């Protein structure tokens, strides 16, 4: 087989779900539905529907969880599927792994698909680790012979040698996950579907798991992997291509960096109506818009990688016909527990800010250093002064996230980033 053939062809897949409580309509409804189902026809009640927008109220009880999804997967592709909660990622994977069937459309596959939707599926607590390896492997589609051949490797990878003949109910949850991931990691399907498995286990095991995923997907006979995760660092690390789902439709598809950038842009484009905030101050001039731009990506975002450079853009409107010759702006970065992290005060710089009568002016605070505070959620508190008079103040005018990333450019995400508040680039030598 040559490497560049299509191994999976997804054509116009749509999936409709009913909202609310399913299945307990009137008996008459259900009998009709049942009668259609028995005859192999579509559910007569599944005719209407609208797009799946989680946060908006719709008119219909039916939504399209996925709508007209089409894409081709080449042999050896490692594709990251990203999107917000409820964008249809899991539904897509469920359809691909044949757990549920699409409402319309077809999927054609030229290889065995195995899914790692959740590790440890089918583990029986009373069976020993060894017995569960066989059972779990078989559920995932391996034959007994394949499992026997790989048994030693699986056990070694899991790091559970000592407990392998103990019932799984005596395992810690971490050990169960290790064993389960080990089985799945040695699965050799043509197409592997992975959903969020990396969110479990300790740091050492996560590293091992990511390494194994890389092994699986790289090399000459690299397998085709579809990977769903909210861990953007892992997605970026593992995948070359990406698909961004928004409200059940494909928004962007292609190079993973483009897709990730698009995703972050979407996240930041939430319109915030700044006029609704609780404010303090005299109010002669007020903020009308605040945003953070990434200097690295040249776009507005509110999720930043550790080490990205940013600028804070504040639009201020003068509501009076006066000239203000000494405007002072203080931007504070706080975490959600109100602990202060960073503070940018215009008075401590050499620049002097002014505001012309009845004008709107944009002030930009560009930060020379990299964002090197620990990955977390943060908020901006911004205060505007005329000399010493507080004109406008908003607590939490904007929220943003910092994500763990390869800040030191060593090819690794920083382990246990929560243990440090600030990261400094540094060197180690020995004498």
């Amino acid at each position, binding site marked *: 087989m040559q490497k560049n053939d*299509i191994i999976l*062809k997804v054509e116009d897949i749509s999936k409709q*779900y009913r909202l609310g409580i*399913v*299945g307990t309509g009137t008996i008459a409804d*259900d009998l009709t539905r*049942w009668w259609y*189902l*028995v005859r*192999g026809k*579509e559910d007569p009640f599944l005719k209407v529907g609208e797009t799946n927008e989680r946060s908006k109220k719709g008119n219909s009880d039916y939504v399209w969880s996925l709508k007209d999804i089409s894409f081709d997967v080449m042999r050896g592709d490692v594709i990251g599927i990203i999107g917000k909660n409820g964008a249809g990622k899991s539904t897509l994977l*469920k*359809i*691909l*792994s*044949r*757990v*549920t*069937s*699409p*409402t*319309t*459309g*077809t*999927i*054609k*596959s*030229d*290889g*065995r*698909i*195995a*899914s790692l*939707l*959740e590790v440890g*599926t*089918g583990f*029986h607590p*009373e*069976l020993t680790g060894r*017995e569960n390896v*066989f*059972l779990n492997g*078989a*559920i*995932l*589609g*391996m*034959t*007994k012979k394949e499992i026997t051949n790989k048994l030693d490797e699986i056990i070694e990878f899991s790091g559970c040698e000592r407990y392998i003949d103990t*019932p799984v109910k005596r395992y810690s949850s971490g050990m169960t996950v290790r064993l389960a991931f080990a089985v799945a990691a040695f699965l050799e399907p043509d197409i592997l579907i992975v959903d969020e498995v990396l969110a479990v286990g300790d740091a050492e095991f996560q590293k091992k798991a990511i390494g194994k995923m890389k092994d699986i997907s790289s090399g000459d006979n690299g397998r085709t992997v579809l990977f769903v995760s909210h861990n953007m660092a892992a997605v970026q690390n593992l995948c070359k291509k990406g698909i961004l789902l928004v409200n059940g439709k494909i928004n962007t598809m292609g190079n993973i960096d483009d897709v990730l950038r698009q995703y972050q842009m979407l996240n930041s484009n939430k319109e915030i109506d700044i006029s609704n905030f609780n404010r303090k101050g005299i109010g002669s001039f007020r903020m009308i818009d605040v945003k953070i731009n990434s200097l690295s990506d040249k776009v507005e975002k509110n999720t930043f990688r550790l080490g990205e450079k940013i600028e804070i853009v504040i639009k201020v409107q003068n509501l009076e016909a006066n000239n203000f010759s000494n405007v002072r702006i203080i931007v504070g970065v706080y975490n959600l527990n109100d602990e202060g992290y960073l503070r940018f005060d215009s008075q401590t710089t050499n620049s002097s800010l002014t505001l012309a009568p009845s004008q709107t002016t944009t002030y930009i605070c560009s930060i020379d250093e990299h964002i090197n505070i620990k990955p977390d959620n943060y908020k901006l508190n911004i205060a505007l002064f005329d000399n010493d008079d507080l004109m406008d103040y908003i607590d939490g005018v904007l929220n943003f996230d910092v994500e763990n990333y390869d800040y030191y450019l060593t090819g690794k995400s920083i382990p246990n980033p929560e243990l440090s508040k600030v990261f400094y680039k540094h060197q180690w030598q020995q004498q």
Partner: protein
Amino acid sequence: MQDNTNDNKTWKFTISPKSNLVELNLKEVWNYRDLLVLFIKRDIVTIYKQTILGPLWYLIQPLFTAVIFTIIFNNVAEIDTDGIPPFLYNLAGITIWNYFKDCLLATSDTFKSNQHIFGKVYFPRLILPLSVVLSNLIKFCIQLVVFVAFYIYYVSNGVEILPNKLIVFFPILVLTMGFFSLGLGMIISSMVTKYRDLVFLLQFGVQLLMYLSLVAYPLSLIQAKLPTLSWIVEFNPMAHIIETSRFMLLNSGEISLNWIIYTVIVTIITFLVGLVIFNRTEKRFIDTI
């Protein structure tokens, strides 16, 4: 929807919303035969883990039930068993009934009790009810050995009982029963995905059905005592299966070819209907359960 004739490429498989009425992918089931074996093993090994008597429970249940039945039906109610030792008579009925009951209860729970697996991975769903019927068959065989042991005990004590020549067809009878319970279980399990009421109905329905299945009395008795209502029993395939197997094992009672044919036909229809409904359901039950 399913043909790829326009494509110049042949695909290993296609996922689409509709399928043929009976899309029996036996080849796929065969590919997963190792899983079938492992499920059977799991069912047998795990059921009595952390019990003291372990697999002995397989034997204790029917024996005690047979003792109780003998006391109630034969000593108290004085039901005549045609010269067969009542205990043996009841044990035969109970052993066979238990196989049917266990298969039915377990298969009818297929979708509900396995939804966590079914919601995560794909394998031919048929594997699970099939494994239930087969693991219960092993259990049934163990219980049959006990029955044979008591049989030999009674014969060596001078009781004159002989199996009928037709006993060679007993395996076929067991097979029929297996298919019947599988079919019925598949129908019920599919409906349980939407109507949980059936779970409760089944719980006591099975108990009631036992009294209509000639477990502890012969067909001739109910025909003699309740001639107007005996048709209820006569239309119950399980009654004929139990009556026929007692005829084969103990040479007691009588069999009618017509009713046997009726039973086989009902079994085939039930099984095929079950298969169709099960196949329909497995495709999207995960959305409704």
